[in-house]
Each structure stands twice: as C-alpha cells, then as structure tokens.
C-alpha cells in the first residue's frame, strides 16, 4: 500500500453510521447505498467525492450501528484514507477490514475542506500540501499491517487459505 493524495472532506464530531448508510436503503445494491452516504449532513458529498479523496473528521467517527455499509460506502466511493480524532470501535474495525486506512489524527481541526493532503498509513505521515504542514501520527497497528497491505480481510484470508495456514469447514456440495 503506497501513500495516497487527495482533496479533503471535513466533518465534525460523532458522525454516526446511520447517516453514513441510512437504513431505508439497506435492501438496495451497494452503488445505490453509497450514493446516499452522508446525505443528511452534506447532500453533495457522494456525488462529488473523487477517488483518493481524504475524509477528515472529529471524535467518535462512525458511532452507532455495526452496519458494514457505513464503511463499505467509503470503500465503494474509493476514498483514499480516513483521518479522525477518534473512532467508534466497530466502524474502525470495518474500515480496516475493507482495506481503507483509518488513522487517529488529533490535529483534524487544522485541515480545511478541499485541502490537498498526502497520507502514508504505513509510515504514519500526513502532509498538508495546501498549508505546508507535516504531521507524524501512529501508523496502522502492527498486527493489522499485513492485512491492510493486502487490501483487507478477504484478500488476507484468501492468502492464508491458499498457503494452507487456515483450517475450516469445506464448502458443502
């Protein structure tokens, strides 16, 4: 996984997973679900976010429901990285399991919307090209580094299965 560069989208504290993935679209395909991501607080987000763009947020990002669609919507929209002051536990795990780096970034308030930012999740560095400021943050936890590098939980499990390192049941006929 290499560094990503993109424009920032800035959100506040306690952005919950219901507004990331509204329940009323649960039965729709993922492209429809993702098109409603965060519409209650920024109706322009899902249609204007570009691949590689960076989400910047405050405290308890992703609080609430376990719905994987909250994290999957950002992955589906090809968001490059997430930088938040803190995360809700299930959302954080979901995000990493989909292979999108989510870093804890206490200085989120120093980033403005549409700044150009480069994130290196393995080195733990953030460069704000618009303001010229550089930041050192905690990188992805060591025990998850391989999973993130491979693109998430499914590629990670696939690799272990192919290597014969994982014992489980067989797919029934």
């Amino acid at each position, binding site marked *: 996984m290499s560094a990503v560069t993109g424009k920032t989208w800035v959100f506040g504290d306690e952005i*919950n997973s219901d507004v990331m993935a509204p*329940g009323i679209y*649960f039965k729709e395909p993922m492209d429809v679900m993702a098109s409603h991501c965060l519409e209650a607080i920024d109706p322009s987000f899902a249609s204007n976010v570009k691949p590689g763009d960076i989400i910047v947020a405050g405290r308890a990002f992703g609080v609430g429901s*376990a719905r*994987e669609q909250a994290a999957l919507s950002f992955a589906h929209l090809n968001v490059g990285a997430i930088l938040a002051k803190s995360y809700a536990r299930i959302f954080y795990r979901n995000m990493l*399991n989909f292979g999108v780096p989510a870093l804890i970034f206490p200085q989120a308030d120093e980033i403005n919307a549409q700044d150009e930012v480069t994130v290196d999740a393995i080195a733990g560095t953030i460069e704000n090209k618009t303001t010229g400021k550089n930041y050192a943050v905690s990188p992805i936890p060591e025990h998850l580094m391989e999973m993130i590098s491979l693109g998430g*939980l499914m590629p990670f499990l696939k690799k272990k299965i192919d290597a014969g390192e994982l014992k489980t049941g067989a797919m029934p006929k």
Partner: protein
Amino acid sequence: MGETLIQKIMARASGKAAVMPGEIVTCAVDLAMILDSGGPRKIWPRLEQLGVGIYDNEKVIVVADHFVPAADPQSAAILKLTREFVKKFDIKHFYDMEGICHVVMAENGHLQPGMFCCGGDSHSTMGGAFGCYMAGFGAIEMSGVVVTGDIWSVVPETIKVDWSGAFGEGVAAKDIMLFLARELGMENAFKVVEYGGDTIRNMSMMERMVLTNMAAELGAETGLIAPDEITLEAIRAGGTEPAADALEWRSDDDATFCAEHNFDARTLVPQVAAPHKPSNSGPAEDFEKDKIHVDQAYIGACVGAKLTDLHMVASVLKGRQVKSGTRLMVAPSSKKIMREAAADGTLATITEAGGMILPSGCGACAGLGAGIIADGEVCISSTNRNFQGRMGSNDSFVYLGSPYTVAAAAVAGEIVDPRGMLS
C-alpha cells in the same frame, strides 16, 4: 493483582493464564450470531470467493429478524436466501421470525457466564447481562469469524458503574442508560462497562439486558454484569443447565478499573433524549413546557419491548386512551413475549387503549419495517438510538424514553413526565 471479569474471559478464550488491558489477543469464538441483514446475504458470497465453508455449524447461529415479515420483494428474497444458507450449511440453531436476535439468544439458553461471543449487530452487547463477552461486529468481520472461528481483540479496560437504592415510581432501567449516555458520553470505544450495585442485583434479567444493550450507546466494547442466582435461573428457563463454575465469573475485589462511578437510583427521574443522539438527554419533566406534539409513540426493538417493558406500558394505559392525533405502535421483542403478553392480558390493555400491535422484529427502530416516519414527524420511542434519519425521513425527529414515558406521551399527545399517570 486482581483481574476484571473481561480479563478472565479473554484469558480463557485466548488460551492464556492471564491477560492485561491493552494486550492484543486472538480469542476462540464460542458463539457467532449472524442475521438476515448482515449475515448470509453478505457472508455467503465471501465464502464462495474464498472457496471454504464455516468453522462449526453448532456455533454459528442464524436469526432472521431485521426484514421480517417480508413487506416487499427485496425483503422476501433476503429471507429466502437466509433460509437457503441455513439448509446449505446445515446450521443447527436457526430462529426464523422468532424475535429479535439478542432477546432470542437469552430466551433459548445460548449464553453462559465466561463465554466469548460475537454478533453481527451493534446491540450484541446485550448478551453481556449473562456475564459473558458478547460484542457487535460488522458483516465483513463476521465473515472472517465464521471461517476462522477466532478474532483479534485488544483486552479492554473496565469502567465500573454501580447503582444503589430502589427506583421511584415510573423510573426504569432505560432511564439509567439515557442518564449515563449524558454522563459518560458516547465515546468509550475499546472499553467495557461493568454494572453492579444493589439496584442491578434486584433487577430481573430483562431489565439488566437494557443496561448491557445500551452499553453500545456509550460506545463501549460491551457491557457486563456478573452472574448471580437470577442469571442462573434465566439460563435454566432457556433449557440449559448452567456450568458448575458459572458464579465464579466475576471481577476480583482488588481488580483495577480505569474509572469507577457510584450513582443513587433513588434520585433518578424519568429521562428523555432529544434528537439526534442518545446523549442529548435530560429529565422528562423539563420537556413538558415545550408542549412537543407527538405524531407517533413506538414501543419496540430488542431493548424496549420485552415483557417487563410491555407491563410498564399497560400500567400507564390501563383505563386511559391514546390521544387523537397520536398513534401508538407496539412491536413485542419476540414471539415468546407476544404470547406471554397475550396470555396475561397486557396486549388487550394496549389495544383497548387504541394501540396497534406490530410483528416482532427490528422494524421501525432501524428504518427497516412497518412504522417508519415522514418529513417533519415526531416520534417518541422506547428504542435505543435516535440518530438523524434512523427511523425513516432525514427530516424527522426521534425522542427516546422508557416504556412508561413513551406510553404517557401516547396518552397526552405530547412529551410528559410519566409519573403523573401512575398514581
């Protein structure tokens, strides 16, 4: 040095003699609960992609509760796929439209003190009332769990929350949680909340489950309550004999907690959480002056429509009528609860007052089923979460209250302190 209950559970599940908070461990999963919503329809394609099956057809439990009963073609297809998954993978425990998963686990003796359990729904924390670890995970992570039978975890620190004294009239476990959401906030990620004190010891399991359910609203990894005779009785009622060591699963007296809180239940008053978050709460009486008109009063969800909850509703509605211009909907948490409430006359009290009974399922709580609300509408609900758009329109307003408070609002047509209707 003493250990907390969560340390003991994770040490056992990870095969270690002892673990410390902050340590990363891999735990063997004793029970993996998956649901129609984020279960088979998400997990089956991933199993196909990996070319493997599941780790244990006794330990993977399937519940159909989110899209029940099917109200449109997509829901019907999702439920059909769920049933096909159960057949294909020879799942031994399948609860098809029996009620909401967390309540069904408790009713059927699946949870024992000391177990390590994962569920594909954030309110899986509810299971912690049995003194076991049960926490919520996304479907992607549950896909991994059903393949590997294990999961990584950071051993959490524990916040100890003790309550003493008896509730006043019209106060319930739900009020504790709306109060705690305000006091402790929603940002306690990767921490466990362990509840204790004589208030909790005097609660039934159904009331205790309100506290562990809404540990999710505190942002906690899970909620825990050490087992006692009441716990063992509930396990037996579910058809399972408790393990011989069941009562040994408790925090040591000299365990280290990251925070300790003591509250007095005698001074607690009915609470209401205003839109759009559970921590936005205050005394119900403070809402009266605003005369907030209620379009819908909803009694439902895992947390808010158990038999004890329906009894609270009936105690308010007895001899009263739902106000014209307000609708009351009641979706009992499970079929078993529906049966019991029918047998003891509770449902009759609700329907005679003008309430409507809905099927047992997650339904309107998560904006999925019958009872969702429109632009500009106000709902007061016995459910656990009131985020913007949660129950339907992005422009609707959801208040949270105890079953007493929701029933009182149905009668008054506006948000009131329920204590005026219990004398």
